[in-house]
């Protein structure tokens, strides 16, 4: 079977469900970077991200027959990746950040936006600022600004209500602005 770039994700999954390795290869090449970036945003550990990428793709291969088409393929695949990370954290005995209260009011003064805008354009400062966020905040900013996903899709991936995504994105941005403004002041 010719697995050219024209084939949709759904067509590739259909072929994979029939055991077509070429389709799996095409699918991997198309989505490897996306899954890896997402795992890195969540884990910030290249060793574990590489291992879990392999597990996600194996799950995609094994579950291809079960893809129901209720969500986009990328949403479904990132949902698998999210579950892999949660399982990994559970094994490591880490908390899953389920206690993150997205409705908490932030009482601290707002960041100096001019400073934050200046800092966000500096790759190193942004990287440091992102590292300072909790994994759920880092993850949600990645899904909004890198994956450019709708809040409904993000809610689907994370298995949380859409309202939770909205407030998490809002808080994540505010926290990042504060980190960046602080970094500018201390430089």
């Amino acid at each position, binding site marked *: 079977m010719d697995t050219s770039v024209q084939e949709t994700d759904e067509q590739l999954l259909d072929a994979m469900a029939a055991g077509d390795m070429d389709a799996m290869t095409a699918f991997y090449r198309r989505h490897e970077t996306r899954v890896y970036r997402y795992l890195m945003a969540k884990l910030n550990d290249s*060793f574990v991200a590489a291992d879990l990428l392999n597990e996600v793709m194996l799950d995609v291969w094994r579950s291809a027959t079960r893809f129901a088409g209720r969500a986009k393929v990328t949403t479904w695949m990132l949902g698998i990746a999210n579950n892999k990370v949660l399982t990994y954290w559970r094994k490591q005995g880490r908390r899953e950040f389920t206690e993150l209260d997205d409705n908490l009011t932030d009482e601290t003064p707002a960041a100096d936006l001019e400073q934050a805008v200046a800092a966000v354009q500096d790759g190193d400062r942004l990287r440091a600022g992102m590292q300072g966020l909790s994994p759920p905040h880092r993850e949600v900013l990645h899904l909004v600004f890198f994956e450019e996903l709708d809040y409904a899709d993000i809610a689907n991936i994370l298995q949380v209500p859409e309202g939770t995504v909205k407030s998490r994105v809002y808080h994540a941005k505010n926290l990042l602005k504060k980190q960046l403004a602080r970094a500018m002041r201390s430089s």
Partner: protein
Amino acid sequence: MNKTDEQLNLWANGRLSEAERLAFEQQMAQDPALAREAKFAMALRQQLQDEPATPPGELGLARLQRAIRAGRQAPPNVQLRKNIWKPVAIAACLMVAIQTGLLLGPEPWRQNNAIDVRPASGEAATAGPRLQIVFEPTASTADIQASLRSVNGSIVAGPSALGIFQVQLPKDSAADEAAARLREFAFVDEVIAP
């Protein structure tokens, strides 16, 4: 606030319809605070999009294909538990072999063919690049030594719980070339260059 924030993010991602975009930009023109927020969102998006990523690439694909061909049906968490002790056992064997060699051998370092052993502390870290490597569970101590010698590398960390070692290369060595050389060994499962 969240509604505006959502619109702002959609605007930065170019996801608003033409009419919505024009209306939002009009709003921005009249509200400098909103315009600054938009500038922040746009810059954040641009930086995240430009952030480099180095996924495993063809190496990862080869690993996946091997796993599929091997028909591993066990859930990954079971595999993970099962595999934890293999790299630990390999590392333990390696340490015993090296120590034995040093204690009983004819001072091999004087013949310029010693294994590059470094103390765990007391020496400044070498500035050369580091590779990540995973060996097949069947790799012997001699295999591991041979592969490390081929690139003048030393194990400086690992194995991690997932069986990953970190190999320190000498200063000025090319990580990609060393990775390619290591991949030629049949017992090397995976090598990731920085």
